[in-house]
Structure formats: C-alpha cells, structure tokens
C-alpha cells in the first residue's frame, strides 16, 4: 500500500488488493492502518514516477491500437475499433493486453465496451471484462452511481435519495435530474449507458494510413525485416492509391519483445506510392543509422505508418516516356539524405546580407532555391568579387612589409610565404552592429601572389588603435 501526506497526516493513498481484503482503504491514516493490520508494508507514494510509468505504457500500448489516450488517474484508454482481429478477436486482444500488464507486474482491470465512458466506468467501478455488443445495458445499469464520478456532494445526495444504481436513475425522467444536478448530468449517464458515443482524443494523432505485422516468433534477421517492410509498404501504398494519396513522411515502428520501441522516420521530396523506391530508401537508412537497429531478442511487431500524405493522382505511365528529370533528381536527393543525413545534401541560396559568412546560406537539398539575377551594375568582364571557397572562421596570417592602410606586400600562411603581385582593395565591410555590438570593421583585399593564386584577405582594426590590426585570410578564389 502507498502512503502520502494529506492534510498534515500520513494517510493511505492507494492500497493493494490484499490490503483491501483486510479492510484497509484509501484515506485511512497510517497509524490507524498499522493498528488494524500490524504487518502492513507502507511505501511512500511517488505520483511523478507513476505518471512516467503510465507514459511508458502509453507508448508501448501503441502496439495494440494507434488510437490511445491517457485516462487519468492511472488509466489508459484504447479505441480498438478494427484492431481486435489482429489479435484473434476481442478475447484474444484482452488476453494480450492482460498478459502484457501482468508481465509489467501491475494490478489491472480491463474492460471492453462500445463507448469509452462505459469502459471506464466498468473498469473502475465494476468488474471489468468484455461486454458483447447489444447486451451491455443490463450490466452497465447495475453499476453504482459513483460511476458517474460526480462531486462528493451530488453523490451523497443521490445515495440519500436511495438512488444507488444507474438503473434507478435511468428509469427516471431526465429533465428533473438535469434540473437538480446540472445540464451535463443526463449526458454523463447517456455516455456510460452507451446511448451516446463520443470518440477519445488520442495521445498522438492517428496516422492517416498504417499497416501492421505481428509475429508469433519474433524476427531479428535483416533480410526478414527488409522483407516485412517491403510487404507493409505494398499494403500501405495500395491503400494510398485507393485514396489517391501519396506519402511524404513514412515511419517504421519496431516493437521489440522486451517492450522497447524504435521509430525510424523517412521523408521524401515529393509524394510517392513507389514501393521499390521507398523500400530502397529504408534499406539505405537502416544501413547507415548512427545507432544501428538492435533487434535484441527479436521484434514481435512491425508497423509501417504514413505520417504525412498529399494528393497524388494516378499517373498513366507509358513505356517510352522517360521519367521527368527533376523527379529523378529528387529521388537522388532522398536517397542521399537517407544515407548521409540532411546536413550533407545542400543547395546554395544567396540572400541579402553583406557579411560574407551570412550572404550565401546553404539550404537543404530538398529546398527549391530561387534564381538570382546578377547585379545589373556589374561589368560582365569583372572578375568574381567573392571567393569560391570560404574559411569559417577566417584564418590568421602573418603579414610582412605592409604600408599603413594598404595591402601587405608579403604574407605567410601555413608556413609558406606569398609575395603579392596584384591587389585590389580595400572593400570595407562593417560589422552588423544591429546583431552584436562591437564587431570590428573589416577591410577586404583581393590579392594575387606571384604563383597565380588568388586570396581574399582582410584587415581587422585600423592603425593607430590600441592593438595593432590583424590580418586574416577569409577565402580562396579560383
């Protein structure tokens, strides 16, 4: 049993079934409980840890149905519409849930009914179990009025009036009950008795399309996993095709026998229903994971989820037509992103900042950069004013023989001396003071050494200041 400090006294907050049989109940002080049952074992209640455990269960129970939500306190609620056949019917499903809970070492009570409120009431205030469709009402009517979970005051009023079971209320006109206990009272009653059905709000939005495979013998071989993924993709894409949709974001969920779950997502540049290309991307992705997929003692379930869909009309593909070039390039980008990660596949997008480090951002290879017009005031004969390669951060150089406010005539970089043959500058670039104050102004020079190598040098600071100016190499021209 668990104890918690309530109103200045240590009181029982929850009791085990054994303790309950001995007559202990929540709310009793610890001293009273000890007096009644001396052998009682008290453990401090840890509500945060309870919540965490419940959260883990929530993720794990995703395997039974994607429509799952917390049902506080200490409950989970699953919408298993259309899921039961996967586990051999409702009885099989219930058995699977109970096995899993028992293995986790939890006391539990499960109920399966037509509406979520009825299931909650049956699990918390009844005996649980499966109520067959159509035969639910008599059982639910026998539940105590406490199942309505009214406020203490209303609950007491009902019991004083001699209304002990839901049946007593159900037989009375609703209007007078609503007048006495509030407008939402009939609705509560109707929901529990199955007259009104509302859906649960799932913990995470259910995927538009998904497919599942359960294994009686857990699988762990790579080849098996690949085959299952291809199968699942076949199934999901068939469904996408019916709905004239294409998948943009896929997720494979691997349920390990020990309860660990690994989700591996994959996104593609344009909506697709092509099984072989997505399967190939998954092969790439699985082969190049930072933390390889560890099957442990095997996976007992794999689910393929299409998280994001887009309209994709069926295309008439003719035999002669080569696929559109841009489509194929997108496939390459997807493949490389799956293998190397999004930060390795890039396109450049110039944008308006005069600071060299910021002026040409690299964007994801999936993005579509906008074409840029060259500045109109440039002479076509002009050489490039920005280097092909840029050092970030700039590299310091040692300069020799410089004229104040001019370019150096010689500099040493990477232990090599370069004699400057030609130079142009300075191009003064001030710091972006609105981003960070105190940035020093830089004077940039394009210089070419006697070997024909072209550099972009800058001087930070000016002569006559406290510290002498420093020279850096910022980039290399072709």
């Amino acid at each position: 049993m668990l104890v918690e400090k309530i109103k200045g006294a240590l009181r029982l907050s929850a009791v085990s079934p054994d303790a309950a049989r001995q007559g202990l109940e929540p709310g009793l002080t610890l001293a009273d409980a000890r007096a009644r049952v001396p052998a009682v074992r008290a453990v401090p209640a840890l509500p945060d840890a309870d919540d965490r455990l419940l959260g883990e269960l929530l993720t794990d129970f995703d395997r039974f149905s994607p429509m799952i939500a917390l049902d506080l306190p200490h409950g989970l609620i699953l919408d298993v519409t259309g899921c039961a056949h996967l586990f051999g019917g409702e009885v099989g499903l219930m058995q699977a849930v109970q096995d899993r809970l028992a293995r986790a070492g939890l006391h539990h009570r499960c109920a399966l009914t037509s509406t979520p409120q009825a299931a909650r009431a049956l699990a918390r205030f009844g005996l649980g179990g499966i109520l067959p469709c159509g035969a639910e009402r008599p059982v639910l009517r026998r539940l105590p009025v406490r199942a309505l979970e009214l406020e203490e005051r209303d609950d007491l009023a009902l019991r004083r009036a001699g209304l002990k079971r839901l049946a007593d209320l159900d037989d009375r006109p609703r209007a007078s009950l609503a007048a006495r206990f509030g407008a939402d009272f009939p609705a509560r009653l109707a929901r529990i008795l199955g007259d009104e059905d509302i859906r649960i709000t799932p913990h995470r939005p259910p995927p538009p399309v998904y497919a599942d495979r359960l294994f009686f013998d857990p699988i762990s071989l790579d080849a098996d996993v690949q085959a299952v993924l291809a199968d699942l993709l076949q199934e999901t894409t068939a469904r996408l095709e019916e709905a004239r949709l294409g998948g943009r974001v896929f997720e494979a969920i691997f349920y390990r026998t020990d309860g660990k779950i690994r989700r591996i997502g994959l996104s593609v540049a344009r909506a697709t229903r092509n099984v072989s290309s997505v399967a190939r991307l998954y092969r790439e992705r699985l082969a190049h994971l930072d933390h390889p997929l560890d099957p442990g003692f095997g996976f007992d379930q794999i689910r393929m989820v299409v998280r994001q869909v887009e309209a994709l009309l069926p295309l008439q593909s003719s035999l002669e037509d080569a696929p559109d070039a841009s489509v194929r390039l997108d496939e390459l980008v997807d493949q490389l992103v799956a293998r190397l990660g999004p930060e390795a596949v890039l396109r450049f997008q110039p944008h308006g900042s005069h600071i060299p480090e910021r002026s040409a951002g690299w964007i994801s290879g999936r993005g579509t950069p906008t074409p840029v017009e060259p500045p109109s005031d440039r002479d076509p004969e002009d050489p490039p004013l920005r280097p092909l390669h840029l050092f970030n951060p700039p590299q310091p150089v040692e300069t020799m023989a410089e004229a104040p406010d001019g370019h150096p005539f010689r500099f040493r970089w990477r232990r090599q001396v370069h004699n400057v043959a030609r130079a142009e500058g300075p191009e003064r670039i001030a710091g972006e003071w609105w981003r960070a104050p105190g940035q020093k102004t830089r004077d940039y020079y394009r210089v070419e050494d006697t070997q024909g190598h072209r550099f972009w040098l800058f001087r930070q600071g000016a002569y006559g200041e406290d510290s002498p100016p420093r020279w850096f190499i910022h980039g290399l021209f072709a």
Partner: protein
Amino acid sequence: MPLPLSAQISGDSACSRAGTPLGALSTPGVHEFYALSGADAVSTHGFGLGVMLSGRPGAGLVWVVHDLTGMETGRPHGAGLQEMGIQPQDLLLVRARNIATLLGVGEDALRTPGVEAVLLSAWGEDRALNLTAGRRLGLLARSGNKRLFLSRAAAAPRASPAESRWSIQSAASTPLMAGAPGRPAFSATLLRHRRGAPLRTWTMEWDREARSFVEPAPVSGRLAALATQRPAAGPTGLRRTG
C-alpha cells in the same frame, strides 16, 4: 611511349594557336584533374565547375566535396559559385565524410537520369581510389552518357582507366586597371588522353557571362607583360603515367 612533340610545346606559343581544351573533355566517362599542388585545389575546382558549365545547359550538376577538402581550402561559398555564373537551382552540393562515401555518391549520381555531370573533389591519397573504383565510375558514366570529373589535390597522378588525365594549376590573371587581379585564369596540362588527343598545355580564363573558357585577352598596351600569360611557375615536368 615517348611523348608526342606537341606535349612538349607549352606556354604562349601553343596558347595563341588553340582555343580551349574542352574538345578533349567532351567524351563521356571519367576525367581526372590533379591539382599541381595543394594550393591549386581551389583552381582545380573552379576549372572543373567551368568545364561542367561551358557549352551545356548546365543544369543537374552535382558537386561532391570531401570533408577534408573543406578543412584544407575552406567550404564552397555560395556567393562565389554565383560569381562563377552558376544558378542555385542547378547545383546540388553533397558533403562526403570519406573517400568511400564520395565514390558511392558519385555512382548514385551517375545512375540518376536527371544528373548531367558530376564533380568529385577528393583530398589526399586513399586506397579506395583504385583501379576498380575508376573502372566502375567509368562504366556507369559511359552507359549513362555522362561525364564525371574527379578532382584530386595533394595526390600524385597515377595510372587509371580514366578517359583523360590533367594537371591543373592556377595561372596569373590578366590584370585590370590599377593592377587588380583579373578573371580566374587556369593552366591545364593534358597528361594522358585515351583517344589520343595531343598532349599540351592550355592557359585560359573563365568568362562568367559567356559561361565558357576564353583565351586570355591579347596583350595590349596595358600593364600586362608577355610573361604573365604563362603559368606563373612554369610547367613542372610532364608525367608519363597511364
């Protein structure tokens, strides 16, 4: 095999007679560019990009850069690419952690129909860059009728099944007014050509507007001296590997 006479002719006498080496680079397959020294790596990249752009629509270009190159020469700079005349939507840049990845990306790109040409920039020697890798890339490139340019820096030219092998060097530019450095200038020496193009050295400049290589402007009465048209350090010993 003794070098043909034309290989020994280099510098301005040959340059004034011929245009650009693009003819020798137009065959599908692998073409290797060796930077003469580490400092010429950026020029080699510039040359490779120029070859990919010139005379073609220049869309669907893939540039795969070895991460080590980024450390040695800095990372490719978008504004600089733009100043070469490349449109952002035409170039896909891929960063490769090691040579094996670099080659793998190259193969994937060659297999993709939307890709027109590929430039691989590798730094240093690596066992993965062997005959097998060269032959695989060559087969893929020829079957897809594409060109793959392999830029090598800090590596010595070696035998390979490539279509052609070049040594690239930065050349002194034609100075502008007031002694400012001019347009990018390259000196390219053909070391070996599978179809027997004459081996020689070209010196050329990159013209952004025309998106092509041009001969350096004829020496006018400006500052330029004749000597500046030559590769600044002079060609250093042609190699006879292949």
